[in-house]
């Protein structure tokens, strides 16, 4: 083995025990990938539907997805901050190094994000006046940008746990202008992650079909049926893709990692089995429910897919953690806990989430009720709501 080049540990200890940081890492990572999947997979589905489907129901689905995506990307970015913090805490010596080694592409991810975000707004706003005016190019551009961003993140997280070649990389080219890993080394992992995002987004679409049919009316029923079928098509494709990519990713891993996943590390093997099972069972249940219009099993199926995703996120973390642990320098996980401030954080988190829930509930109550004068241009007379009816 070549001499590994890993930065020395910091003189300042971790502000909490590693188990707590790992728990928060996984928790916030799951929170991040939910809106992320909506953006990546949902954006893909929206643009595809836009380009291929030209019935009113398809257009309505595109409008619905395009309408929620700008909010979803806002949450994706914000919720992504926390797991990135915890990755830097736990694996900083590896993560900073890999980021620097691919410095320019890594920073370019932000440029792509900016372009993707604004073109998404163009795509969403363009259809507000009339569905026909929605600019397809903006949708395509934004999906392409988000694919680029997510690829760069996968690339960095893969580079982070492959320190074997670092010394040579830097000696040969200190500039940080390349990705440092060949595409074929990242692609299996990337496509697998992408297929999970697509699965989540497709599940959302199916559930959205059920949800909209509940509002009543023939039009909604027709729309709901279309969306259920259309979403089910995507879901079966995504599940198949996930199976193929999962197998490819597994086979592309090092012998050591494969050994852990296939039983050498009981926790990893257990969560992998559980995740696969839940994902498959939940997905199939959702597909069956979509065909038979069975609302109850649809929600159960959706829950299965979600839990499966959580299990896979846990496997992902265990694998990353055990791989990284071999390369962390001595003292990297020394701790100097700051319990008082952690408690303050926990308190503020609870209050903050409470505040968010309160805002959402209050808005919902207002949307349903409507006795009070409405905000905005209304004359103040009860029920005057000029902009009502827009989705």
């Amino acid at each position, binding site marked *: 083995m070549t001499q590994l080049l890993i930065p020395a540990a910091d003189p300042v200890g971790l502000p909490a025990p590693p188990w707590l940081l790992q728990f928060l890492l996984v928790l916030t990572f799951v929170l991040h990938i939910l809106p992320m999947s909506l953006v990546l997979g949902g954006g893909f589905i929206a643009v595809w539907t836009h380009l291929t489907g030209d019935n009113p129901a398809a257009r309505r689905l595109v409008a619905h997805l395009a309408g929620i995506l700008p909010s979803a990307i806002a949450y994706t970015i914000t919720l992504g901050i926390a797991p990135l*913090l915890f990755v830097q805490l736990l694996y900083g010596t590896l993560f900073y190094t890999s980021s620097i080694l691919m410095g320019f592409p890594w920073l370019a991810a932000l440029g792509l994000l900016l372009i993707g975000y604004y073109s998404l707004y163009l795509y969403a706003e363009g259809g507000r006046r009339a569905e026909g005016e929605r600019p397809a190019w903006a949708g395509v551009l934004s999906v392409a940008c988000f694919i680029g961003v997510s690829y760069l993140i996968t690339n960095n997280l893969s580079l982070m746990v492959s320190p074997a070649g670092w010394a040579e990389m830097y000696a040969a080219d200190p500039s940080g202008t390349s990705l440092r890993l060949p595409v074929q080394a990242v692609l299996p992992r990337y496509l697998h992650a992408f297929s999970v995002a697509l699965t989540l987004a497709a599940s959302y679409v199916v559930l959205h079909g059920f949800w909209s049919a509940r509002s009543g009316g023939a039009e909604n029923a027709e729309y709901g049926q279309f969306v259920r079928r259309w979403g089910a098509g995507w879901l079966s494709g995504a599940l198949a893709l996930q199976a193929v990519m999962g197998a490819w990713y597994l086979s592309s891993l090092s012998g050591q990692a494969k050994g852990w996943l296939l039983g050498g590390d009981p926790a990893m093997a257990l969560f992998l089995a559980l995740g696969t099972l839940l994902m498959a069972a939940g997905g199939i249940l959702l597909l069956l429910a979509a065909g038979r219009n069975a609302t109850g099993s649809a929600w159960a199926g959706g829950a299965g897919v979600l839990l499966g995703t959580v299990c896979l996120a846990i496997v992902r973390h265990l694998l990353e953690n055990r791989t990284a642990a071999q390369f962390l320098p001595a003292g990297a996980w020394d701790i100097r806990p700051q319990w008082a401030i952690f408690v303050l954080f926990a308190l503020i988190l609870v209050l903050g989430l409470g505040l968010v829930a309160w805002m*959402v509930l209050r808005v919902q109550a207002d949307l349903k009720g409507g006795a009070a004068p409405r905000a905005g241009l209304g004359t103040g007379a009860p029920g005057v709501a000029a902009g009502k009816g827009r989705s």
Partner: protein
Amino acid sequence: MNYPFWEVPILGGSLVIAIIAIVHVFISHFAVGTGFFLPLTEQKAYREGDSALLAYLKKHSRFFVLVSLVGGAITGVGIWFSIALVSPQATSILIRNFVWGWAIEWVFFIGEITSALLYVYTWEKVSRQTHVILGYVYGATAWLSLVIINGIITFMLTPGRWLETGGFWDGFFNPTYFPSLVMRTAVSFALAGLYALITASFQPGELKPKLVKLAASYIFPAGLVVPLAGLWYAAMLPPQLRHLVTGGAPVQTNLFVGSLVVAVLLFVYVYFVIYRRPQSLNLASALLALVLAFAPIGGLEFIREMIRKPYVITGYLYSYQIFTDRADELKATGLLASARWKTSRAVGAAATEDPAAGADLYRLQCASCHTIDGYNALRPLVRGWDLDTGRMYLEHLDQVNAMMPPFLGTEVERDILAGWLVQLNKEGR
């Protein structure tokens, strides 16, 4: 040294950070102030039954979300990405010290985006009271995130008692925390008003003077507070840093005094040109006010970065990512022998033969502040040098210019770097 060096040609890493940071400072402060401007003005419009003002606010809030939610979030993450690339060691120290601070800020971010999105999407759909509350929640959470990040930014320049105790609160409530918070809060309100002038310039007849008056009520108080807070800030600096901006170093002093003067000028301009003749407000005159604001805001951020040199964390970590308490050790063992990341192989006397050693030493010791041909370029600075000049400079680097740290290599390494520097002006020129 401990981490690889990310070399950015022409700009240099610190300028990359500065560019992203200044855009972010502008957007984020504007967002904090506007977070209060929106609900306050909305309430005023209801009180006065002014539907034109409401229509204006609705548009203003849409644009505001586009700028602050998207631009603010991405440049904010951008600062974080870029400091991790340019100063990984410092970033790691900051995160290990302040992660719970950041985590708290993260909760405020979630409150911010939720309230902002609900605010713009629920015009005319929810009750007036709910809508106004959403606006205030945005303003409050945005300001609270400033309360947090201000502690971390000021810490880097004035870590205060943290250097002895290593305690979270000692670093957070450091000597410049409060003046900086007051100044940033005032800047936020000023920017909200200045920005309202821009959108006001498009408004018809009667609305325009009303908006100008409104905007002025944000700008003028800030005009009083910003210079005072600036002086308070200077007073709270440790003596050796205060000395730099009060005559000790001409560039820093001029920038500091200049920033405060331009700040005053801005308010004079807004008073005489805009406030006194509101009807004549147009896009150009509003933009000029914003540009005038850019100068002191950018200037003060820039000074903060300048007087912090040669450190990233004053008295603790040098710009070239070496802890101050390791300086003596490195002088003895040598940079090339201690550096993990380099393109040359040889160390000690043998390195003299290695053509890559000079460039490595440049990256290890100079490139965190200099580029070869771009920002703070070395090639012109070392024009006309011979080996002896080079040696002499490197031996006294921290005395030549107080913004520079000492050169930490051995004598052999000093000679190699001197040779490399002299070579810069010989390559085919």
